[in-house]
């Protein structure tokens, strides 16, 4: 460091001497030899040398080098998710494969964990220095067998609700006093899990839907849309263990009341929670901040009218101030969440609440902004000039990196992009997407299911608002490394192609569709065929269309086991024939024409007219006659016209002429 300092000093001094020389030369136009050389040889003494401030030594964390290296690398749009192996056979190509592969990897891990916990003696040898606790086998059974307080504490830590309650009862019967702290911990355990044992994740045969938040991480691959209903499946039972043990307490303190009230609110016993709170006040105890948060969450459930709900919340907040309990971020979020259920009162009170909390130095988190946006932008309701709220929120939030502080933080991005989609605001959508790239915000996007929703909405908005080049740029960036689009979104993409007249990209999109597993969706494929058949393109594009159309035909033909079979319609068959005719592939078109009969569909007159024009170019008279016969076979009303055309435009032999006149009489008679 000293050498670098001296180097800096030298550099600085040289620079200043250079500057001085320049000044001298400017001031003295007739350069005197002596002055010049003196200025050259010695560093100027009188030049202003600035103070060199040596900075304090920085201490870097252990991962600083890795983080610096990581910041130089962007996401690779050609690679799949980091979870998967980098091999074409092992890369998921559709969203169902993505889910399947990640779930199978998780179940492999669970199988290994089962073996490790069933035979822990083989995994005891500790090679790691320093010790890595997460790689040691877990003890699933409680070790301390005797009836004592230490055994109770152990069972509480292992989250065994029923065993802990049984042990507590045994201790009470034996007459051993259990300290208030331990009883409070037991109450916490019971109220958190709602008096049932949390499902163990290592046992393979157990289902995963009932697990609580604590053990959620390995199983969050499934859709979590039903999370709220899962939690509320267990309702607060009458006279359950928590209430019973609470009643046995001689002097319940704030902590005990807090555990009980929070448990009641979590499991839906709202009015009971409020009555317990009145008990607490009657015992001249103070409630703590989490109790108040729970009560505020419960407030909209116990009252009906918006005003009453708001008054109850204000009342609670006033009591909080009286008891000198400081609110925290979760209080702010609880109030805002309750305001979502308060209709118009919510809209008027939301901003004052936020400013008051700011005054108490509680900064809103992404969850608060999420609730704010939900208050003002109800899904499905018409908007009357409220678009600036989203803009204000984005102004507040842009450029900041957030850490997860509230479980509802993960809803922010989905709500924001839903609002952008509803108000068709592409600018704000870009800002929301930019926010995702700042710092650690990518963690707040939620699990795979929520990410899928976010990307689906973002991409649909892009398809609606932007031109084809921008859309394709985003398409190549997001698909399929981050997002596997559904068939609806792909239909939006086709519409953009149509609007911007880039139908020549259709064969590429068809390849992507096949890869994504949408190749057998009937509506999508029929739309593709219609778009291709609509206008005549130039020759090379038409060729690619013909190839694509034949490929599509293959999708209809053989149904692999398990794949959905598509059925031909008259429209799709005619589109296919038109595309092939436009590319001068008469033979293929002829085969398709025969398919009309096999699949019991009737061709239209325009199609047969077009076909006849094509045949005329090649001059194949026999084929023209067969065409007329086909038309007669379908009893089409346009058959006489066709016959006339053939008679006029083609050179017919006697035999053919007689055949035609026979047909004419036939159709005339049937008319």
């Amino acid at each position, binding site marked *: 460091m000293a050498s670098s300092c001296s180097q800096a000093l030298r550099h600085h001094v040289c620079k200043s001497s250079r500057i001085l020389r320049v000044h001298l030369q400017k001031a003295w136009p007739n350069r005197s030899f002596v002055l010049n050389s003196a200025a050259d040889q010695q560093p100027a003494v009188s030049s202003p040398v600035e103070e060199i401030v040596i900075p304090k030594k920085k201490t870097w964390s252990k991962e600083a080098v890795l983080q610096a290296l990581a910041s130089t690398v962007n996401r690779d749009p050609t690679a799949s998710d980091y979870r*998967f*192996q*980098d*091999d074409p*056979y*092992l890369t*998921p190509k559709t969203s169902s*494969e993505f889910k*399947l*592969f*990640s779930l*199978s*990897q*998780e*179940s*492999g*891990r669970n*199988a*290994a*964990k089962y*073996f*490790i916990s069933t035979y822990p003696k*083989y*995994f005891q040898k*500790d*090679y*790691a220095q320093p010790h*890595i606790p997460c*790689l*040691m*086998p877990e003890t699933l059974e409680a070790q301390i067998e005797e009836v004592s307080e230490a055994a109770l504490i152990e069972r509480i830590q292992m989250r065994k609700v029923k065993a802990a309650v049984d042990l507590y009862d045994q201790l009470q019967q034996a007459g051993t006093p259990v300290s208030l702290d331990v009883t409070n911990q037991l109450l916490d355990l019971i109220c958190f899990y709602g008096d049932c044992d949390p499902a163990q994740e290592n046992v393979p045969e157990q289902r995963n839907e009932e697990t609580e938040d604590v053990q959620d991480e390995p199983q969050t691959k499934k859709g979590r849309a039903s999370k709220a209903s899962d939690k509320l499946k267990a309702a607060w039972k009458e006279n359950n263990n928590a209430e019973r043990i609470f009643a046995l307490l001689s002097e319940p303190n704030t902590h005990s009341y807090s555990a009980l009230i929070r448990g009641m609110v979590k499991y839906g016993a709202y009015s009971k929670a409020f009555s317990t709170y009145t008990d607490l006040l009657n015992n001249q105890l103070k409630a703590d901040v989490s109790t108040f948060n729970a009560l505020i969450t419960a407030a909209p459930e116990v009252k009906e009218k918006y005003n009453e709900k708001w008054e109850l919340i204000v009342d609670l907040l006033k009591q909080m101030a009286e008891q000198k309990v400081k609110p925290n971020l979760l209080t702010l979020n609880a109030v805002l969440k309750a305001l979502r259920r308060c209709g118009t009162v919510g809209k008027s009170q939301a901003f004052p609440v936020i400013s008051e909390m700011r005054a108490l130095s509680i900064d809103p988190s992404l969850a608060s902004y999420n609730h704010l946006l939900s208050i003002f932008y109800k899904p499905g309701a018409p908007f009357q000039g409220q678009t600036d709220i989203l803009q204000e929120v984005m102004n507040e939030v842009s450029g900041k990196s957030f850490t997860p502080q509230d479980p509802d933080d993960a809803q922010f991005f989905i709500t924001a992009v839903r609002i952008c989609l509803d108000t068709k605001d592409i600018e704000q959508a870009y800002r929301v997407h930019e926010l995702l790239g700042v710092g650690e915000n990518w963690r707040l996007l939620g699990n795979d299911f929520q990410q899928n929703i976010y990307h689906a909405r973002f991409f649909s908005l892009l398809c609606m608002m932007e031109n084809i080049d921008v859309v394709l740029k985003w398409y190549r960036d997001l698909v399929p490394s981050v997002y596997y689009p559904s068939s609806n979104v792909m239909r939006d993409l086709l519409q953009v192609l149509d609007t911007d007249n880039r139908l020549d990209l259709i064969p590429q999109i068809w390849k992507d569709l096949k890869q994504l597993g949408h190749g057998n969706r009937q509506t999508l494929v029929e739309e593709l065929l219609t778009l291709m058949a609509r206008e005549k393109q130039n020759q090379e594009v038409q060729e690619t269309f013909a190839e694509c159309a034949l490929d599509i035909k293959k999708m209809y033909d053989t149904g692999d086991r398990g794949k959905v079979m598509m059925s031909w319609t008259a429209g799709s068959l005619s589109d296919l024939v038109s595309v092939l005719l436009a590319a001068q592939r008469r033979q293929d078109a002829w085969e398709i024409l025969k398919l009309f009969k096999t699949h019991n569909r009737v061709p239209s007159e325009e199609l047969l007219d077009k076909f006849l024009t094509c045949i005329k170019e090649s001059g194949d008279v026999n084929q023209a006659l067969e065409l007329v016969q086909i038309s007669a076979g379908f009893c089409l009303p346009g058959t006489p016209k066709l016959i006339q055309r053939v008679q006029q435009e083609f050179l017919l032999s006697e035999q053919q002429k007689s055949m035609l006149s026979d047909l004419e009489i036939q159709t005339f008679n049937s008319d």
Partner: protein
Amino acid sequence: MATSLVRKTKLLSMVSSQLNSAACFRNIHCTAACLKNRAARIRVAKGDKPVTYEQAYHPHHIGHRKGWLSQHTSNLQGEDGAAERVVEDVFIRRFMYGTFHGCLADEVVIKRRGNLLLICAVMIQKLLPSKFYFLIGYTEELLSHFYKCPVKIEMQTVEEKVVYKYL
């Protein structure tokens, strides 16, 4: 001092003469004979045996035409633990051979970076990808807990075993 030396040599000659009697001459061979010039070599046969690149070149080609199958730093000057690494490698190779039974196309390459154990394997596309991922998750988790260090698998798949020549 001279006398004690003479006594010692006399004792020694007495002992050796006793040993030279027929009863003390059997040598017991406890292990199988592993000849250096037959290790890791597939001999030339009729011409119908398919052989991969790894198998076709003999051990003296390591460093010239072949690479190393196991990469760690315990063979450098002043580093220890070489024997433990060998035992770990043998276990890992048997584990991979058994877990991905019939799927291995070539020898497993084991690399150690810091405390990360990287197992690189080339597999034949014999199983469905979901089954591969199940086995990968299982192997990574089990070996991590066994060796108390992070274990990662890097897998590449080929359609069939890549044959270099027929011997």
